[in-house]
């Protein structure tokens, strides 16, 4: 499909570039780093993982329903998180992929979540799949579910969690991401309740982190904020990270998805 691309090289490179606030001292850096990020390597790995028969049933994920019907990958990421009737819960991409691994491939939750986050030497299957699936929504407006009662509840829960202070340092997400115009070190802090800040952000995750040369997912990012909040670690695919991701994505809705991109 990608072979259809007829755009000029510059336009292609620009496709990964996030629109950062121009006042950031890092604006040039982030634009150039985004243009030269090795993201296609991860997307290609993810496509391979998507098509690989696995688990007791030895089937691939190609029949996985990401919300647009079984096997539809194009545009699926832009529609997440959303409510899934078969699971009777709101799911983000990673949670849904895990659901498909369990139900379609017959894999145990334990096996499928043994190594959800990889490292620089070896990306995880979840990271590669996230790169591939997200990349297939490139250029599409983000339309997470906002109608179903459970979608509304997830948003509400995410909002409450966002402001809830806890842990040895008394932090909430809003301690760093709640007020306009602040920096941590030299990095601008986006206000995650504000669409103007959160749109460019959510439009570019999942992402290649230049500081560690690793491709990282949104659930990893939620966990890393809790790590920095000096809290225990969220369980993968539990209601907690899904609610936060729902809150952030709904705040960002309407943004044109331009990822996967880069982060510091």
């Amino acid at each position, binding site marked *: 499909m990608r*072979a259809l*691309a*007829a*755009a*000029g*090289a*510059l336009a*292609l*490179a620009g496709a990964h570039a996030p629109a950062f606030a121009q006042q950031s001292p890092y604006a040039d850096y982030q634009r150039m780093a985004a243009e*030269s*990020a*090795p993201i*296609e*390597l991860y997307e*290609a*790995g993810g496509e391979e993982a998507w098509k690989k028969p696995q688990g007791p049933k030895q089937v691939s994920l190609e029949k996985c329903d990401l919300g647009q019907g079984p096997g539809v990958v194009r545009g699926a990421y832009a529609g997440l998180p959303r409510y899934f009737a078969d699971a009777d819960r709101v799911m983000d991409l990673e949670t849904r992929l895990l659901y498909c691994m369990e139900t379609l491939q017959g894999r145990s939750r334990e096996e499928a979540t043994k190594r959800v986050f990889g490292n*620089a*030497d*070896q990306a995880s299957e979840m990271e590669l799949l996230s790169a591939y699936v997200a990349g297939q929504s490139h250029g599409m407006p983000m339309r997470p579910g906002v109608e179903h009662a459970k979608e509304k509840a997830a948003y509400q829960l995410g909002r409450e969690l966002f402001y809830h202070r806890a842990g040895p340092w008394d932090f909430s997400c809003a301690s760093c991401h709640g007020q306009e115009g602040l920096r941590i070190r030299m990095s601008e802090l986006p206000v995650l309740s504000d669409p103007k800040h959160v749109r460019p952000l959510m439009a570019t995750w999942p992402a290649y982190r*230049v500081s560690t*040369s690793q491709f990282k997912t949104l659930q990893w990012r939620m966990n890393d904020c809790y790590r920095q909040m000096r809290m225990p670690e969220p369980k993968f695919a539990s209601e907690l990270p899904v609610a936060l991701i729902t809150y952030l994505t709904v705040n960002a809705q309407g943004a044109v998805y331009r990822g996967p991109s880069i982060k510091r």
Partner: protein
Amino acid sequence: MAGPMKMRATSQGGVTEIRVLMAHPMETGQRKDASGKLVPMHFIQNVTVKLNGKTVVEGQISQAVSRNPVFSFRVKGGAKGDKVEVSWIDNQGETNKTEATVA
């Protein structure tokens, strides 16, 4: 551990832009692993770009090129359908190469 490559070559206005990605750790020999042991130097040393079999760029690089290197090169001309090949050799003798057709 070194791995796959991805490349695309796009012709526009008489210039072909070649963008190539290489999975490679580019270890400096100064990083310690989780157990505190130094990770040995492991980095690409030579990169060669060929257009229709003829060498057009030869690069020598050090361990200070970032992990998972991404290069862009430009060649004059290059019609749709022309073959571009990029190969590398690292300091441990590993090599890889990839080919693409100019689009």
